[in-house]
């Protein structure tokens, strides 16, 4: 059931979705270190990059990558959770050149820093603008578990507890980590 490209990839939380309900087949929570590896695997499998967006939640920023297959309805979403005070994430532009603009857009809107980006200039907003318009006020931020639908959690790192209330009945949810 698990696609070949996913073998051996270090995934924090692997979620299977129903494509007809969410338009996504796999949602993978990755750490910033494994993101480029994941992107490279999908590139070699023949996926293309649809978009990079981000999201401001109570648990931090979430960078969201959508990649899609050419042959069938198959969309993979990568989620990388980043702290509000120092949002740093490696650029995947060495794998997908199209990421250059998407990453600049996410920099404009959220102030996320993409390390290794060759030209981190504002793309859509003025060059002298310091605000990031899509950052929410602290009281308006909503926890991740109320925003993202984890679908069916296939595998989970024991320290990954963002969805802990969703499956609190399992013995895995120990009060450790975040």
């Amino acid at each position, binding site marked *: 059931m698990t696609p070949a490209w996913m073998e051996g990839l270090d995934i924090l939380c692997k979620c299977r979705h129903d494509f007809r309900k*969410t338009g996504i087949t796999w949602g993978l929570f990755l750490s910033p270190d494994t993101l480029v590896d994941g992107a490279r695997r999908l590139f070699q499998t023949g996926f293309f990059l*649809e978009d990079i967006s981000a999201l401001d939640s109570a648990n931090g920023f979430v960078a*969201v990558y959508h990649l899609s297959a*050419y042959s069938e309805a198959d969309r993979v979403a990568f989620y990388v959770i980043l702290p509000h005070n120092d949002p740093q994430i490696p650029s995947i532009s060495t794998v997908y050149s*199209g990421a250059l603009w998407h990453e600049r857009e996410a920099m404009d809107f959220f102030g996320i820093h993409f390390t290794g980006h060759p030209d981190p200039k504002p*793309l859509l907003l003025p060059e002298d603008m310091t605000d990031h318009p899509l950052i929410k006020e602290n009281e308006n931020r909503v926890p991740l578990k109320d*925003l993202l639908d984890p679908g069916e959690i296939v595998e989970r790192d024991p320290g990954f507890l963002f969805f802990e209330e969703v499956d609190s009945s399992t013995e895995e949810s120990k009060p450790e980590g975040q």
Partner: protein
Amino acid sequence: MTEGDEQTLIINMGPQHPSTHGVLRIVLVLDGEYIVSATPVIGYLHRMHEKMAEIRTCLQYMPNMGRVDYLNPLGWNWAWVGALERLAGIEVPERAEFIRVITGELNRISSHLVWFGAYILDLGAFTPIMYAFEDREKILDLLQPISGSRLTYSFFRPGGVANDVTDAVLKDTLDFVKYMRERLPMYRDLVTDNIIFRKRCEGVGVLSLEMCQKYGATGPVLRGSNRSYDIRRTEPYSIYDRFDYEIPVDEKGDAMGRYRVRMAELTESLKIIEQAVNQIPGGDHIVKKAPKPRWKAPKGEVYFAVEGARGKIGVYLISNGDKYPYRVKLRSPGFSNLSLFGELAKGHLLQDAVSILGSLDLVIPEIDR
């Protein structure tokens, strides 16, 4: 010869250059007439539609969708209502799906006609845009009584469409299909077979499949490089699986290939419209319990993609059940298609930059959002 060399010349193409069709600026480094590097500068028409989504209800956001891409508003209408319907599980009546297909394909033709006229105009031929706008006018006259507007349609609704179509409009649509089919051979004789036009397009801006994959190119740009990828087939939505039509591709990958794909799509869209008008059933044009303006989207995340005139339009919507969406991301096909321009234009003549830009079919408000 590199950038910064004494023999190179840096010029600005745009933001008000006629061939950029909107407000796009390209910083070109030229060695003589050859392009050393080309850097598009965008954002002049940025309106922050994604932020506006966070201060409107889902239905109040509909008019925004007509304004993201003014040439193909129904594609964006469709992506937005599709996302809401997928998230909330709203059923759409059969008749509404047919109306969506008919109007959506008419809109694709009108969008391609503007591209066709403007592209040839950029390459120096004035007459075709007059013919193209004459035909486009007929489409606007068809869509006006249906949707109530001529340009920035906000016609689709979650659960259906805003108005029903009359039999008279359907009959006019069939007449238009017949009329348009007679016009297409004229376009072929006038433009497609024109030797001067072909010299400007053939072998210019050859786009490899690998580059398409790296930059996420979709739509006619990708199909012009010989990959049969169309959301209507790959991620079937609405009732597109019921119609008989081809996905045109071209193996050349040059500007002419992209031109040929769009021209072939005109024929295919006409086929779909004809079948849809002949098969349209009776019934409601919108579901009885359709969302009201203050309707709240249920909690969850959803991605919905449709095949717009320029490629894959995607809407990524996250709702926490509040009255406004929590986050909306709009995936615009032109954004990805333009991002490859810098690499594609390298080594070409300055005049070919115009030809390549036109062949990408850019609509700047859609890129800037």
